[in-house]
């Protein structure tokens, strides 16, 4: 069967059809929608014969081997059975929904979701690969979410859908884990390999984990206790959805899963214990609760839970016949439950209510529907001649053969009968309470029979109830056998599908159940009173409450940790750094290494003293901001001197010029910031911070010392050797900057340029508080531009520019370069701003600093690109010596163009920052008339 790979995708294609055809009539839409599922069903059925012969179709193509995922499908008995249920009932639901949905509901969207869901289900049952199985499994969760929440404007629908998604989603995650462990244990993600490795799996140490995780997936999906509560709440969905999801599909996926992995996982004590007990509990609890529901769909929902429990119980028993019974009940339950839901939907649709306290005596209004419903509920109750009776008989039979609970094994049949009694009672209630039992009370509508074709799906299903019930062998014999064989991964044992097995114990149990049920229903008022004593709890509210409390607890944790305190964030960051470094530093035995140290001299000690004292003074006086700035300047000065002393003249120059620009910037900022810092750190905080600071300071100092006292072999000799010959300059540091590592410098000036742009952005919308007095309330001086400063600054400008040119030109061979030159130029211009003010400058120079940045970066980049023309890599430098008469020998180098780019960017960036910052105030600040 070569079509198997694309067969499951046929319905997927169909999801678009309803969306496209929704604008035509509803009937057209429905038929068009049904076309592809029908075709799929047909194609599958056309292979049924072979499968009944025991054949198995498999097809696979690789997909994502890294996660064990392949596109692999198998069509065996079990898959066939489920496919038929999915597609067959699906088609009926499509027809039914055509009439059920009102004109306001978007039928196109509905069908699209439905088909999507159908596709997902089909994928699950046809999967031949574990990961792919999970893939479709999750898709069913998602698409069922869409279906349940179809009426999303109703709070019930939203909550119900969320709950379903959360529970099944959680189960899905457990399932994933289980499947992954299973696949890893076996070494293959192919389903067949898994099924063939049953004994191996059960022996493996991972087995308990696998079983628990996979069963978690199955139980959540199949609404097994204690995960059952989502199912009744999913009844907020339109009834066709319920009919589909809770009869043949969604909830059956869990059952399917257990059946699918039956050969690999079942038949161990652990399996038995978990599955039977869960199944039994679910079976009883569902049945019990069902009886007390006033909502028609609520009753059916809880009955579904109960029947799912029954099937689970069967699958847990571990005997082959129990498995057969389970498969058989899967079929039967799907048929009668789908029809019951549809009947409930008709009642709801035609009477406007689902409340059995309002619904009474509908027989008079809709006898035909009533008849159909009665047949279906008879099947649900397990009345002979109905299909439900047959599988229930098999169930009772199997309960009698159980010995796994040891001396308590008798409990199982007893409890099973008890469940049967409840089943009869709630089935009775469904019939009697709705169709008889007096007159309707306050119904919104006068009930009547539904449209002709809305009944058709129910009729078909009810007919099936009877047909299967009366001619089981003919109707489902082959299918059941094939499905059971596939479930067992071996030939199914022989069993009889006869209606009559003679008077035996199971029959007695059935009789007891029916009579007991009728009696119980008769005396329901006592039971209802008894039940009424218990406080009612709406699982929806409980669940929402739990989720909300989780969310609010999470919120509290987040509010506690992310408390928006930068001080804490920095503390954590630095704390981690301290812990990491300190812990590894503990292994350093000797701080000092072998490298000889430079002898100490008084000059250095003086420098160290100056540095230390001013640094400490900065800390001590950081709340007196101007003073801190002055002491900071001293630190900067000493650092520059240190660079000069330790043979780094370029560094000294750069540090000096950067220092001045930084100080100017800080002074500018100081004007707009408070003059003083209040003392607000608690002593504890201060001690804490001091400890951390000293720890890191100590660590860094230690490492620094340890490094300096150890010899080091570096790559740097290459630079000194090649600086002149390869880079054309004798100032190696500069050659590194513009040539060896020019790329760093390109990045560095880009940083500077970006910073300027960013600062421009910050400034452009700033609304500032401008103090008219200093921190102590003293009005500012009125002398805006002191005459001496103004005049002298003017004279200094040309000199500064000349010095800047000097520094720029010699940079390649002596200390200097574009960066320092740029800063000198900037400082000289800033000096003009300080001396004369923005307005004065504005009328005199028209430099567009932004263009300067742009062209600076461009020039630097283009100078690097030039080398491409000669087949060299980016930034390959070029230099040569020329001779001109009169002038003599001189050098030209591409590095100088690069340096020019650096120069322009530096000037542009610094000026864009400072000039704009200065400009901030000029427009708003009242300009005092100068005295002249």
């Amino acid at each position, binding site marked *: 069967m070569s079509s198997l790979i694309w067969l499951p995708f046929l319905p997927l294609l169909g999801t678009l059809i309803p969306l496209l055809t929704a604008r035509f009539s509803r009937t057209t839409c429905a038929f068009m929608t049904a076309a592809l599922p029908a075709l799929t069903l047909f194609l599958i059925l056309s292979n049924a014969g072979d499968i009944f012969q025991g054949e198995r179709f498999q097809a696979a193509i690789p997909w994502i081997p890294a996660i064990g995922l392949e596109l692999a499908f198998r069509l065996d008995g079990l898959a066939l059975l489920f496919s038929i249920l999915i597609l067959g009932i699906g088609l009926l639901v499509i027809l039914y929904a055509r009439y059920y949905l009102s004109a306001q509901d978007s039928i196109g969207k509905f069908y699209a979701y439905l088909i999507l869901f159908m596709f997902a289900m089909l994928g699950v049952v046809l999967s031949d690969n574990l990961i792919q199985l999970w893939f479709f499994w*999750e898709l069913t969760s998602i698409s069922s979410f869409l279906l349940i929440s179809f009426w999303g404007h109703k709070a019930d629908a939203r909550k119900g859908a969320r709950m379903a998604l959360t529970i099944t989603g959680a189960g899905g995650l457990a399932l994933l884990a289980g499947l992954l462990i299973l696949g890893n244990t076996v070494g293959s993600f192919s389903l067949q390999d898994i099924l063939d490795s049953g004994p191996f799996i059960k022996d493996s140490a991972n087995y308990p984990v696998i079983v628990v995780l996979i069963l978690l997936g199955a139980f959540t999906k199949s609404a097994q206790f204690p995960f059952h509560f989502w199912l009744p709440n999913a009844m907020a969905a339109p009834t066709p959805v319920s009919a589909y999801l809770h009869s043949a599909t969604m909830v059956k996926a869990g059952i399917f899963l257990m059946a699918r992995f039956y050969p690999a996982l079942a038949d161990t004590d652990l399996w038995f214990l978990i599955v039977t007990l869960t199944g039994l509990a679910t079976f009883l609890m569902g049945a019990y609760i069902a009886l007390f529901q006033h909502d028609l769909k609520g009753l059916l929902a809880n009955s579904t839970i109960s029947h799912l429990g029954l099937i689970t119980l069967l699958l847990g028993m571990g005997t082959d016949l129990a498995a057969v019974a389970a498969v058989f009940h899967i079929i039967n339950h799907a048929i009668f439950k789908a029809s019951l839901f549809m009947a409930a939907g008709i009642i709801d649709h035609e009477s406007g209510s689902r409340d059995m306290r309002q619904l009474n005596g509908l027989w008079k209004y809709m006898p035909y529907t009533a008849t159909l419903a009665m047949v279906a509920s008879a099947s649900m109750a397990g009345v002979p001649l109905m299909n439900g009776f047959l599988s229930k008989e098999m169930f009772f039979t199997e309960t009698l053969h159980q010995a796994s609970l040891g001396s308590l094994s008798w409990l199982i049949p007893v409890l099973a009968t008890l469940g049967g009694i409840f089943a009869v009672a709630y089935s009775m209630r469904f019939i009697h309470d709705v169709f008889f039992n007096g007159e309707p009370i306050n119904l919104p509508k006068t009930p009547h029979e539904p449209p002709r074709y809305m009944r058709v799906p129910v009729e078909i299903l009810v007919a099936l109830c009877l047909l299967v019930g009366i001619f089981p062998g003919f109707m489902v014999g082959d299918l059941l056998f094939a499905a059971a064989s596939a479930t067992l991964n071996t030939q199914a044992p022989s069993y009889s599908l006869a209606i009559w097995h003679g008077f035996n114990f199971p029959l007695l149990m059935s009789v007891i159940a029916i009579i007991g049920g009728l009696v119980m229903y008769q005396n329901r008022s006592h039971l209802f009173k008894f039940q009424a004593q218990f406080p009612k709890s709406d699982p929806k509210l409980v669940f929402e409450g739990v989720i909300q409390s989780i969310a609010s607890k999470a919120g509290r944790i987040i509010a506690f940790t992310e408390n928006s305190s930068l001080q804490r*964030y920095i503390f954590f960051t630095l704390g981690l750094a301290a812990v990491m470094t300190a812990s590894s530093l503990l292994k350093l035995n000797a701080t000092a290494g072998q490298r000889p140290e430079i002898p100490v001299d008084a000059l250095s000690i003086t420098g160290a003293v100056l540095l230390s004292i001013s640094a400490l003074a900065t800390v001590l006086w950081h709340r007196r901001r101007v003073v801190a700035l002055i002491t900071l300047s001293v630190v900067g000065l000493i650092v520059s001197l240190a660079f000069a002393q330790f043979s780094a003249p370029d560094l000294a120059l750069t540090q000096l010029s950067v220092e001045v620009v930084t100080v100017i910037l800080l002074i500018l900022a100081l004007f707009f910031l408070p003059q003083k810092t209040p003392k607000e750190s608690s002593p504890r905080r201060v001690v804490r911070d001091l400890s951390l600071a000293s720890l890191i300071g100590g660590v860094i100092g230690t490492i620094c010392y340890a490094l300096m006292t150890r010899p080091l072999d570096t790559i740097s000799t290459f630079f000194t050797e090649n600086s002149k010959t390869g880079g054309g300059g004798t100032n190696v540091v500069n050659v590194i900057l513009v040539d060896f590592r020019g790329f*760093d410098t390109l990045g560095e000036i880009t940083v500077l340029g970006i910073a300027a742009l960013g600062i421009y952005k910050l400034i452009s919308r700033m609304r500032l508080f401008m103090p008219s007095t200093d921190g102590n309330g003293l009005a500012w001086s009125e002398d805006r531009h002191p005459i001496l400063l103004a005049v002298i600054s003017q004279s200094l400008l040309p000199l500064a520019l000349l010095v800047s040119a000097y520094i720029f030109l010699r940079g390649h061979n002596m200390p200097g370069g574009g960066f320092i030159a740029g800063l000198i130029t900037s400082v000289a211009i800033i000096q003009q701003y300080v001396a004369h003010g923005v307005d004065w400058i504005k009328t005199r120079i028209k430099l567009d600093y932004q263009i300067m940045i742009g062209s600076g970066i461009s020039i630097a980049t283009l100078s690097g690109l030039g080398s491409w023309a000669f087949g060299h890599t980016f930034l390959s430098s070029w230099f040569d010596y020329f001779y001109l008469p009169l002038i003599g020998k001189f050098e030209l180098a591409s590095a100088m163009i690069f340096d020019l780019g650096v120069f322009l960017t530096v000037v542009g960036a610094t000026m864009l920052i400072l000039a704009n910052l200065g400009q901030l105030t000029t427009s708003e600040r009242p300009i005092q008339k100068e005295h002249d």
Partner: protein
Amino acid sequence: MQHLSIFPILIPLLFGAIMLLPPFSKDIASQRVCSVVGTLFLLVSSAVLLFEINISGVQVYALGGWQAPFGISLIADKVSSLLVLLTSFLAFSVILYAIGGKDKGGAYFHPLFMFQIMGINGAFLTGDIFNLFVFFEVLLIASYALLIHAGGKQKTQATLHYVILNLVGSSLFLFGLGILYGTLGTLNMADMAIKVGQLEGETATLAKTGALLLLVVFGLKAAMLPMHFWLPKTYASASAPVAALFAIMTKVGIYSIFRVYTVIFGENAGELANIATPWLWPLALLTIAIGSIGVLASPSLKVLSANLVIVSSGSLLACAAINSEAATSAALYYMVHSTLASAGLFLLADMMARQRGKAEDRFVHSRPFVQPRLLGFAFAISALALVGMPPLSGFVGKVMILQATQSSLQTMWVWPLILLGSLAALITFSRAGTTLFWRHNGSVAAEAEPAKKTEIMSVALLLLASPILVLFGGDITEFTQEAASYLHDIQSSAYALLPGVTP
């Protein structure tokens, strides 16, 4: 095309610089054209680069013609070129969104955007650790400037925290670099990888402190606990295209961790082999945990997206901690997936916020959307992708990570956290989705702004990537697998890059 590997840096640099010059500087329309063309160029050249690398192997580009280890080299291998392509694709998509109008509200959006891309690509491509620092700074300063784009109190406050924290981070970075240079005497990462293996005794101890300092720095970028605090506010307050672009920022940190602690301090580092692992383990797991808690606590879509970024960081860090080829491969796949998906969600959140009046993107009832179907569909896609549910890419990444654990101890820690994280996301997304799309009152807000065509296109591009990542998952995971094995193979990731050096 010998220069192909520098294109991803030069294209944004030049386009950025040119946009500062007339005639582009004053005219937003021409800047938009410039940006779209620029990022498209970038996209094409990155794709070609990846293609070439895939065929002909790693490309080393010696800048200035100075061979490694003396000059700076760019290393375009499968790892870096994949991430460069990712960045370029993201950039192109995000710029499409930005030209819908989000680029207004402040000067220099386009040049800054370009510079940011340049920084990110540079960080991915460079083979020199100091150059990595420089590119970190480029991308950081550009991100600072972009963060404050369009102004607002929250932005200012969040940016202040972000900037100061990163300044501290940069200081630590330099301390770390100083230590590493002071012990290894070289800056080229391949050369460092070789020299690290020869370190012994106290010098090795010193180098270790440097390496761990770098871990803090990269961890800060990657939002590793306890340094993740800055992220939610920063991302949530950023303007939409910026936040979307930021989706890749944490990945730069992650990438650096992989590069440095796999190649340099990896298996072959002698005494310093795998030094990051003991620290990475607990921190990665705690990061997933705190991210997931944040997910549950998220009051709005942007904060949720931000917390999801933390979760994905945690997951990626866990991969780094596992420290195997499979884990690296998983991380690479997951990085691509989570970057695009969270970027899409950030943009989507903005589109949604603009249609919900005062409710913005908070999970409270509000006026209905102007474009409910479009937004709903997009929301569903990104939710599925980010929760990690089929059929979208999240599940592949997740399963790859789960499959990468190597011991039962690792499994016991990583699996529950990752799966519970998914559950947290599922819960939050389902709550968010039902509230955002179905809890309505009143009619459509008057000020509601329907999403523009370019914006829809942008989100569509980002979200479309997710199914494509699944559909072609086989080829893509094969590629990530090869990329990972390259990274883990000292021969190809170090020795082969240095002329004349053999093991």
